[in-house]
């Protein structure tokens, strides 16, 4: 992955944080295996993955809360492996905020300056302006237990930013907020990132959040980076089956690529195409919203007939739960009108197709999700 990133034109950009082949074990369980990652100066990078994929461990390695078993961590060109958190110019917004319960909002935000023994007047000036900026001016004397979730979030941000860190780490920053507030805070974080020009490294398990906020996303799977790229790259050109499935969800249809360049697939018709090496097992990945109803048009690659087993209304769209004759399950998300026109109801067999540019072909042998 690392070399791939370097080959790109942006590789001349300054690297702010570098993880070089780090491994970390807890007991016998491997949290990270030979992970390498470059975070560029000023970017908003999100570490995304299911729980237990090692994303939080990665963040804690950057923060200095964990020491890697092998490998090295560098921040701003300095090797900081084994350097404790208080000697790194990196600050963290913790999951559940970890505000100091015995200190007021003002004292929480002032903490880093007090530790630095900054003169009182200077410190309170900076804290006051930070509180203003966070919209917390009227909450200065409150204790954390007297604040709402959104307010605590802003105190945590203000506290981490007061020291002007070179990198801001965010550990599931929005997970404790309700859905509506989360959307607002996503935009807020993006705006703040643009204003401050800092490097943000964020951890989340929420793909929507990652897609909405990040400049780049690193998808982690079982302690390794499965793919790293812009949200669009990750979504449109997933590197493997895991990424395709984890981000956006996907149907996987096994098929065989023949030596004559055609693809055969049980129960489906596949147009000839040039693709992976001939004579091998492949997997065709189609996102639910890429399946279309009715007669195939020009450029169709897959045609299939599937029986409807359930119809789920999602509001603007409708999700069809389908099964092929051999039992393979599929889901399709379609416009309400199209579904109504097709007369879909449980038990009915529908014809579906997908365009070539919407289908991703994976090699069956390598694209599988490693069992671990």
């Amino acid at each position: 992955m690392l070399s791939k990133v370097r080959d790109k034109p942006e590789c001349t950009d300054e690297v702010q944080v570098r993880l070089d082949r780090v491994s970390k074990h807890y007991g016998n369980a491997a949290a990270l295996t030979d992970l390498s990652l470059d975070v560029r100066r000023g970017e908003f990078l999100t570490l995304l993955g299911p729980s237990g994929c090692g994303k939080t461990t990665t963040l804690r390695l950057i923060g200095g809360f964990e020491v890697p078993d092998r490998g090295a961590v560098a921040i701003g060109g300095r090797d900081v492996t084994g350097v404790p958190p208080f000697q790194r110019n990196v600050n963290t917004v913790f999951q559940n905020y970890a505000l100091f319960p015995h200190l007021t909002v003002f004292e929480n935000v002032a903490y880093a300056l007090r530790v630095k023994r900054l003169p009182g007047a200077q410190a309170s000036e900076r804290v006051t302006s930070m509180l203003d900026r966070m919209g917390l001016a009227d909450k200065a004397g409150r204790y954390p237990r007297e604040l709402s979730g959104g307010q605590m979030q802003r105190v945590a941000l203000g506290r981490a930013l007061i020291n002007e860190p070179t990198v801001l780490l965010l550990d599931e920053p929005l997970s404790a907020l309700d859905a509506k507030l989360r959307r607002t805070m996503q935009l807020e974080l993006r705006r703040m990132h643009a204003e401050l020009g800092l490097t943000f490294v964020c951890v989340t398990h929420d793909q929507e959040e990652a897609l909405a906020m990040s400049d780049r996303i690193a998808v982690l799977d079982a302690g390794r980076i499965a793919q790293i790229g812009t949200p669009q790259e990750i979504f449109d050109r997933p590197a493997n089956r895991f990424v395709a499935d984890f981000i956006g969800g996907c149907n996987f249809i096994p098929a065989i690529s023949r030596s004559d360049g055609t693809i055969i697939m049980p129960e489906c018709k596949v147009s000839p195409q040039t693709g992976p090496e001939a004579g091998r097992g492949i997997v065709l990945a189609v996102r639910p919203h890429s399946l279309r109803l009715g007669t195939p048009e020009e450029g169709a690659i897959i045609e299939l007939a599937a029986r409807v087993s359930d119809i789920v209304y999602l509001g603007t769209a409708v999700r069809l739960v389908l099964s092929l004759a051999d039992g393979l399950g599929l889901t399709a998300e379609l416009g309400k009108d199209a579904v109504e026109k097709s007369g879909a109801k449980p038990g009915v067999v529908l014809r579906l197709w997908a365009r070539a540019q919407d289908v991703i072909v994976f090699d069956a042998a390598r694209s599988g999700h490693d069992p671990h």
Partner: protein
Amino acid sequence: MILTELSSRKPAIDWSWHLRLVAFLGPAALYALVFILVPYANLLIYSFWKTDNYTIVRDFNLGNFARVFESPVYLSVIANSLLVASIVTICAVVLGYALALYVAFFTGMRRKFLYFLMVIPLWTSFLLRAFIWRLILGREGVINSGLAWFGFTDEPLSVLLFNRFSVCVALTYVFIPFVAIPVYAALEKIPPATLEASMDLGASPFYTLRRIILPLSLPGIIPGAIFTFCLSFGDFVAPSLLGGPSGIMISSVIINQFGSAFDWPFGSALAIFVIVVVGIAVALARLLERRYE
């Protein structure tokens, strides 16, 4: 930025972690070593020595332990101590549990007040709570003078004080809060939804008590019962004040060996015996705890 060969470096052992551990734990660990482990080890060594004509002979032998098990006097004192400890444990667990349950049924300020009432006795002098029973059970105590005043008895009852009964009453009285407080803490942790679920599934309150509340409060009962058993087994205040000749317990005998009898090795052997009993009780409790985890 060039960071070649970064990962080939082996991370050093985290000395700061060890240093901090020693700084925080060191003083207390040293104190525990010198004033807990060494004294108990010393006691063990003494128990293998013997006395000859009021001087201690440093000659390894098991005579002290043989003496404990061969003499009917010591065996009966041990039996009495075990009996008293068992009676007290049972009574204190039953009454302490009922008390904790009673307090847990209340809410708000009343509950806080009752909890306060439950805790206060723990903070008052052990000696005081034992000697009160002389006032109550004695020949001229409240019960006897009360009975005489009402004209129920002509002669004061002598069965009340200076026997096993009075020791058990006083120790039960002392140890009820020792059971009630941990049980209350365990009851507090039971989510109300668990009980509602049980009732919702058709269980009666008593069935719920037996099958849900009781098992879930075992983490409170076990430590309470163990404390009560161990501390009442080795108590010397209650038997000295209220025991009389039939209520002699092992600690009085031990004290005697270090006082008038001047047989330190034998006293040490008896003390080791108490430690072994405590150890067995604790081990049994841990076994129980593990079974119900």
